[in-house]
């Protein structure tokens, strides 16, 4: 079974943590991007998008990330992403050179530190 993408939102201090699981494609990504953006208050210092449990991502998921990076940048908030090295999701983000838009980390704590 391929699970459709699920979103879980949490707060770690002044940082919002959005954990996405399942497979993220065009059927979910655009809406999910908007939802995450809305859930980040202006008071928050930053956002961590946790893709460590994400099984699949395509260009629409990538677009979602770029979109979030743009939005947060304009609000002077920081974004960092958690991905597992060597897995398909990390490979896609590497290909599209997402590192230029936001820092990527292999574990959540590093990402949280980066975002606050």
């Amino acid at each position: 079974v391929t699970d459709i993408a699920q979103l879980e939102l949490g707060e770690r201090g002044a940082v919002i943590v959005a954990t996405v699981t399942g497979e993220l494609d065009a059927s979910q990504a655009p809406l999910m991007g908007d939802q995450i953006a809305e859930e980040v208050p202006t008071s928050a210092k930053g956002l961590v998008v946790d893709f460590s449990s994400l099984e699949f991502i395509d260009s629409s998921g990538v677009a979602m990330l770029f979109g979030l990076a743009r939005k947060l940048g304009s609000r002077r908030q920081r974004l960092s992403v958690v991905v597992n090295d060597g897995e398909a999701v990390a490979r896609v983000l590497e290909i599209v050179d997402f590192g230029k838009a936001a820092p990527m980390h292999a574990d959540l704590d590093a990402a949280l530190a980066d975002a606050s």
Partner: protein
Amino acid sequence: VTPLSDLFERSVKGRALAYLFAAGAALGLLTLVLPHDDSVKDLPLVILAGVAFLVAGAAYWRAPRITKPELHAAVALGTVILTLANYYVGSTALFPLLYTWTALYAFYFFDLRAALAHVALIAASYGLLLALADHPSAVTRWLLAVGTPTIVGLLISRLLSRLRAENLASVQRADELRETEARTRLVLDSAPDAFITLDRDGLIVNWNAAAERMFGWSTAEAIGRPMRALIVPPEHRDRHDERRRELVESTGNVTGRLMETEFLRRNGSRFQGEATVSKVEIGGEVMVPGFVRDITERLRRLEEREALLREQAARAEAERVAEMVSGMQLLVDAALAHRSLDAIVEDLVTRVRGVLGADAAVIYLVEDGQLAMAASSGVEREGTPPRVEFGTGFAGQVAESSEPLMAEQPSAEEIADADLAALGCESLLGVPLMAEGQVTGVLVVCATEKRPFGPEGLGVLQLAADRVALGIDHARVYEREHRIAETLQRSLLPERMPQLPGLAVAARYLPAASEAEVGGDWYDVIPIPGGSIGLVMGDVAGKGLAAASMVGQLRSAVRAYALEGHGPAKAIEQLNRLVWTELGESQMATLLYVVLDPADGQARWVNAGHLPPLLAVGDGPSVFLEGARNVPLGVMPFPTFDEKTVTLEPGATVVLYTDGLVERPGDHIDNGLRRLSEAVRDAPDAPDDLCDHLLSALVPERGAPDDVALLVLRNTPMANHFSAEFPTEPQALSSMRTLLRRWLRYAEGSDQEIAEITTACGEAATNAIEHAGATGDSPFEILGSLEGREVDITVRDYGAWREPRLDDQGRGIGLMSSLMDDVEVTPTHEGTSVRMTRKLNGTAL
């Protein structure tokens, strides 16, 4: 009868004898008183006179019952007295002539021989007297004395015998007449009819026993009274007089004039009588004899018979009408169950024509404010059915007025229906078809011969029209409902099977042959996000609109629960709660819900009171999935639903169905299941072919007795080549990835290779969906082939090519290029084709 008859009465003879003796004695005494010869001896003569008086007295006394011997004795005694007197008188020459008296009496009294015996006695006694006296002229005297009475006696005898014969005849005639009269009276008295005779003045002269019984007046009371006062009711008396006068004054005899009139009884009651009256003239006297018969009973019987006939006729009419009505009713009933509106009007119009014996019948129905010919019988129809406006033509007038209409020898313009007019109608009769106060049509019948339908025909036609209107109304309502139900049901069944990667699905829905109402059978195939497939087979109790609408609710609910990602047990639990709480306790439904993960072939199912699904694997024996049986939906508020799992290996097939496929009236369900299992064994693999095979093997030729729903899913085995179609919507992406991963696993790609190729193909598919835009609904295709170790995948869409935007979709092309060995994008005017290849060698690019 005649005075002469008395002459021969013995009492008369007795009295005559008495007078003779008395007269003789008186004469003898008188001669003794008068001067006479001295030779006459007075004393003996006085004694003889005394004896004669005694005999006279005895004869008179005995006269009423005197006997013949007494008469003989008396006459003989007379002869003896005369002889003695003669002796004592002496020789008087005239005296012997007195013997003439006794001789005369003898001839008068007796027959000739007896009379001659008395003459002999006279001859002997006088002869003896003469011999004793020794008289010189004795012989002369004797001859004189005997000869005179003999001659006179013979004459008298002759005369009397004539008289007697005549008297006898007259007596006989009188007797006969009396007898006839008695017989006639007997006959008349025993006759059941009263016999009454009137004289010319109307007075009753004859009245028999039957008349006594009939009128209550005795013969004695009736005779001599005027009939008019006795037995004619007062109001009829003048007419009676008139008739009698007319009868009496008519010339000649009149026999047997029959008349029916009312009579009066003594007790004042009346009755209807039939009189047969004659008039006879007998010797100038007019008599009016008549028989009267009481016909009350006959009239009653006649009336009874007429009443019976009337009743029979009425019953026959009622039966005819009832038959017609029941015929109509049957037709209406049939229409309610089975027929379309077209079929029912066709049938009704034929029936109406038959019932009325009309040459043609036409039903017009109101359509868009006009009357459109809907059905005809006895009319040649060609081309488009004629239409008339309200108020135009015969039917139009009936429709406009909502009243029955009759027309004699109408013109073609009046009829306004050329085909009908072509028949040459002599009589037209039309009645409106009314439903809920509205004219819904017009029923017209036509007779081509001069044969008016009359008020009776109108009545029957009206009756027929009511039935027709009712039938049409019902048929319309029914058709509308049927159409709604059918549309609803059709909309509830998937229009086409979703393309399921690696799976082949086919379904059939076969309405029952005999049932016009749609049933509650339904099925659904639900692509669940994440690539799973939900298969639903259900049966809602009941039929028609209600069942169809419940199917609609169930279908929506199942889809909703499926899309929420609930497993089968959870989904069914929620569904049961919905049925129990929302849809009403009376609703019940069976349901089979199977969720299949095509990635690994795991099928989870829950069975809520439905027939078990059948699992067929290759050529091996098929098995019914008996587990996970639960109560039907809607029978309990909180049942627990058991769920089971089975693996659908590549090549395995699962068959879902409703009872219509396996149940046969009078046959055990197990036999049906066995038939299904056997039919599946030698069936073709492809689900479409399998469905056809099962229907032809299991459904009787004349059609299924109940609705049949059938759903077949096959887990297609993977091969070097595959192709699949997906809808151009983002939700299809996960299904596509599932299929692709299955195939790549079959191609023995490494996890990394599988992930990368899947991502690349996902990009191509996302572009294809993007190209289709909001308008397109044509699916996109994905074709894969494995040549050696190289996979060659093409994603083709039929949308409008768009230049990739730099930021987002542009990244898609980049990803594809990065993840595949080679990417070739070919935009054409009818769509875009993206071909990608990659060599599998177990490493990432």
